[in-house]
Each structure stands twice: as C-alpha cells, then as structure tokens.
C-alpha cells in the first residue's frame, strides 16, 4: 500500500481543532506518515499552534483561533473578522510549515514531486521493539479460549509472537493502542464492560491490544498482566510508549 505523505482531508472540529486525515484505515505505514508530519510541524511550528495529537488515522492540530487569524494579518483589531475562518487560517499556516519543510525541487515548489527515497526523507531506522513482560493469567483467558476455539497456549503464542505498532495513546494517560492482533485472536469487545480492570492489565479487542495504565472500567478481554508502569507523572517523559514505537510482549511466569 502506498504510504500517504500528505493528509487526504483537513477536517475542522470546533474553533480550535483541525484534524488531518491520512487514510481510511490504520496501518503501520499510516502511523509512520503521521509521525513524519508531526515531526515536520514540530520542527517548524506555526504561530498559534498549541498541541499535536495523533490518532489512529489522523493528526489533531490544536491551535489558538485568534493567534492563527492574526498571524495571517486578519481580524487583528476587530475589522476584517467577518470573514476570518480560524480553521482555514490554521490549514494555510500548517501547509506553509509543511512546504517549508521540504527540499525545494529545482523547478520551484518541492511539494509537487512525488515522495521517494531520494527526497531526503529517509525512513526512521527500525529500532528494536520495546519488550513488555506479561504474565498470561488474565481473567478472560478461559472465556477467550472457548470463544476462539484456541488453546491457552495458542493464545499466548499468537499474542506474544507478533510485533505491534503503537498506533496512538489515548483513553487514559499512557494507554497504548497497539496493532494489529493476529486474525484468529480478534473478537469484539466484551458485551458487558468490567467496572474494574486493574493497572497493568493487558487486553485485546478487535485488531487492537493495549495495556491499562490505571485501574479503570474497561471492555477489553483481559489476557494477562504486566508489572511495567505505563505512565508515571513524575517521570520525564511520563509515558513508557509513544506513537510509532514497536512493541513485543514477552511471556513470563
């Protein structure tokens, strides 16, 4: 599948959030593209840019609506504000940042040439996967074995035999959404969510697997537990995993 280099759609949400949509479905390649665009915007932040928030197939740009409009010379003193759309201003500023981030092609604008290995945008070196030790003793292991027709050993082998990509962090501080779970292990989330899932619980739902950083309610199938702390507000950075990281679960007794 072709790796999208640029967002395919720019979707405003409210006054201060612009979602850059890269694809219809998540994939490791889509995540790589999101990380690349995020890094370019971080290298050349535009005036008013507040935060960059990756999603499965999107990059969220949180911006100050007044600052982006002012940066384009509009609505500085009330006049001209009639027509100023902050989402449009944020898009223009973001596009300018992204274009400035490209090597200019000999004929002028670099954004017309198709992305290639020669464009200077070398793929990030494939780092060793982060290893997360897991005791496969989850309370849903039995039910999952029954549901999938797999043995407990098969479930452990399949889940720990895959290298996952961190597609995004969300739901709670430090909660990693990892993809993708091997086909035979995919089941819809539990019909009745648990009111209490402990911190460190490793769960699966559909094509995703994840780790609960805090005790919380949760609807995923719990297959194991890890002692690794996923989020520590006193640490810098506070998160154990970040978008784009590769992860392998290592069974422990």
């Amino acid at each position: 599948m072709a790796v999208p280099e640029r967002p395919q759609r720019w979707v405003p949400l409210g006054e201060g959030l612009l979602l850059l949509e890269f694809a219809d479905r998540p994939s490791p390649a889509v995540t790589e593209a999101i990380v690349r665009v995020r890094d370019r915007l971080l290298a050349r932040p535009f005036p008013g840019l507040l935060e960059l928030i990756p999603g499965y197939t999107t990059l969220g740009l949180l911006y100050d609506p007044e600052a982006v409009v002012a940066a384009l010379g509009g609505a500085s003193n009330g006049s001209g504000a009639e027509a100023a759309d902050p989402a449009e201003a944020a898009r223009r500023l973001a596009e300018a940042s992204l274009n400035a981030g490209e090597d200019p092609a000999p004929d002028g604008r670099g954004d017309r040439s198709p992305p290639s290995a020669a464009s200077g945008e070398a793929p990030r070196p494939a780092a060793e996967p982060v290893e997360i030790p897991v005791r496969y003793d989850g309370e849903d292991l039995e039910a999952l074995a029954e549901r999938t027709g797999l043995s407990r050993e098969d479930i452990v082998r399949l889940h720990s035999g895959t290298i996952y990509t961190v597609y995004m962090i969300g739901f709670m501080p430090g909660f990693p959404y990892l993809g993708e779970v091997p086909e035979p292990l995919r089941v819809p989330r539990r019909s009745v969510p648990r009111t209490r899932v402990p911190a460190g619980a490793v769960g699966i739902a559909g094509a995703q697997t994840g780790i609960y950083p805090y005790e919380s309610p949760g609807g995923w199938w719990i297959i194991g537990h890890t002692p690794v702390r996923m989020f520590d507000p006193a640490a810098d950075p506070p998160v154990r995993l970040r978008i784009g990281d590769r992860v392998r679960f290592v069974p422990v007794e």
Partner: protein
Amino acid sequence: MRGRQAEEEAASGAVPARQASAAVLIVENGGFFTTVQDLGRPGYRASGVPPAGAMDPEALRIANRLVGNPPGAAALEITLAGPALRLTEGRLVALMGAPGPAEAVFPDGRVEAVPFGRPFFLPSGGRLRIGRLGGARAYVAVAGGIAVPPVLGSRSTYLPARFGGMEGRRLVAGDRLPLGGGGLSALPPDAARAALRAWGRARPAAAFFPAEHAVTVLRFLPGPEWDWLTEAAQAAFLGEVFTVSPASNRMGARLKGPPLPLSRREELFSAAVDFGVVQLPPGGGPIVLLSDHQTTGGYPRIGAVIAVDRPLLAQLRPGDRVAFYAVGRPAALRWRMERRRHLRQLEAAIALRWAAALAAAGLRPDAFDPAASLARADAAAGGTTTA
C-alpha cells in the same frame, strides 16, 4: 516555571520571611464535590493526558485577580454545594462563579455574610461556609494560591488517573492545603482591612456572574458527522430541548432528549477531541465533552459548542434544560475576541481598584504587585535572599 518555584519555596527556607508560608487551608467539610483546579495541564494530550483545569476558566481568573493572584493560580472549584474551610493565617479571599449563600465565621464567633465577586479578609482561625450554589460551579481563591505540588506543570486535579490537586481526589474533611506566598498574601491584617475599606462595596465582576436560564442556549458549530444525522434528526437537534442527565461529570455533560437517528454508520477510528465537542454514541444521547474529557474519541462528532459558551456549560446542573443554535466559525471567533476584550477590561479594572485601595490605605501598591513579588520569590529561590 511556576511549579519549580513553588517546589523550591516549599522545600527551602530561602524565601523572604513574609513570603515563606506555613499557612494552611483546612477543610472542615468537603461539600458536595470540591477539587483543586488551575487553568489546566497543557502539552500532554499526545500522551493521553486530558487538559483538566477549571470548568469555567474565566471565573477562576477573576477570583484570582480579586485577591491579587496571577490569573492561573490554583483555587478551589466547588460543585453544587460548598465546603466549610478554615484558615490558619489571615488571607484575602474571593468567591466567583455561580453565587450562593456564603458566610464568614470570625474567631470571636461573629458571623457575617460574604459576597461573591468582591474580595474580603478572613483572619487567622476564621471559617468560610458556602451553601448551595445558584448554578453548578463556583471558585474560592485565596491570596497566595493553593500550593499543592504541581504535576506535569499543573495543580489541577485529574480524578480518573488520581493525580494533581490534593492527592488526585476531591477534598474531604481533615485535608490541609498549603497556601502560597507573595502578592497580597503578604498584606498584614490591618493593612488588608484598611485597603478593603477603600475598595468599597463595588463588585466589578458581577457582570460575569452566570445568568439563570429557563433554557440554556448553546451556540454550536456543526461537525464532521453532522451529515450522518437524518434530516429529521438535524431538525430535532436544533429545534428541541435537551435535559442534563445526572450521569454528567467533569468529563462530559450527558444529555437526554429526542431520538437522533443516524442515516450512516461507518467505522470511525479514534481521533483528537476537545472541550465542547458533541459526540453522539449510537443509540445514546449526545455527550458534550468537558474539562476532564479523554484526549481522543471514536464516536460520531456531530459538532462542538463554541468556546465563548464554555462558562454556560460549566454551570449546567442535572435536570437543567439546554438547546443548540447553529452558528459559523467566523462569528464564533468574533464573539470570542469580544469576550476576551471584556475580560481583559475587567481584569484591568480590578488591578486599578486594588492599586487605588492600597494607595488610599497608605500602602505602596508596587510592594504587593503579584508580578513583582513573584520576581522577588524567584530571585530568593535562586539563593540571593535579602531577607
């Protein structure tokens, strides 16, 4: 920066004696639901950390200005019914937000009603009791601010992950909250009383008290999945009245109302959301996201309440009625700029009134200027103490 300074203030004796503070706010009764909040925790959304912070940041800013604090100092956010508090050191205090009955109980037993929107002095050993609010939320600011340790740059309480504020939870009887120093917290009691006499009875902040509405009208920007609603559902959303459910909290306001059928249902992958975004879980009622909202969401986003109406969202109580009115982004920006201008004017008016009151009481205003005193505290924390 604010955080490091406070940590060093708390950790060392290297601050001038009048700014070093062992003062404590004692919680005698936590009220219905009271938390420590500031202007929130920006910069960590990509790590799944919500913004948190005051539901009504304007009311928090004004309360802080009324006691001479920087606008983002930590204060108490009260929900529905207020707490009972006691001070171990005399301080200026201000209440802002949805007014309710409040009284000061002085050490000699005298009881006096205290106003919202105007500073008052509570002496050492004095108590503050706040009753049922006329809305959902109000703020108690104390000169010097609430000096709990900052977490990821903010003192805001974030309950789901239990960090920030007072051990990441709501306040309960027996809690002892450290108070910061600097600014008007350094006013000796007699000087504070003299300055307040000069301040007079004016309540410049009263224009920012939330109004009572039979139906709260929320201005609304249609969002990416607005077109998924059937035409009838769009008409119902903009034409009918919704009721706030008791299941609402700081994460979101859950609304009950007419059914809102979707004509499309496609898989959505979780993406960034923000305060005010209106999600529509299939088969459920709309949810308006509030301060503690998750950083990402995967439900259809039918739109967003505009930023300028955030104080209205902050005041919604279970059973309150709301309606939505569609507007455009340029208008939303225009109203936002207008509101900001009014807020800046109010903050300037409060600063001027303080300067005049301090001068009338024979005090040098610049000695109590928050910015100047913070700079002094910074210098002191750097080890060049002059105390």
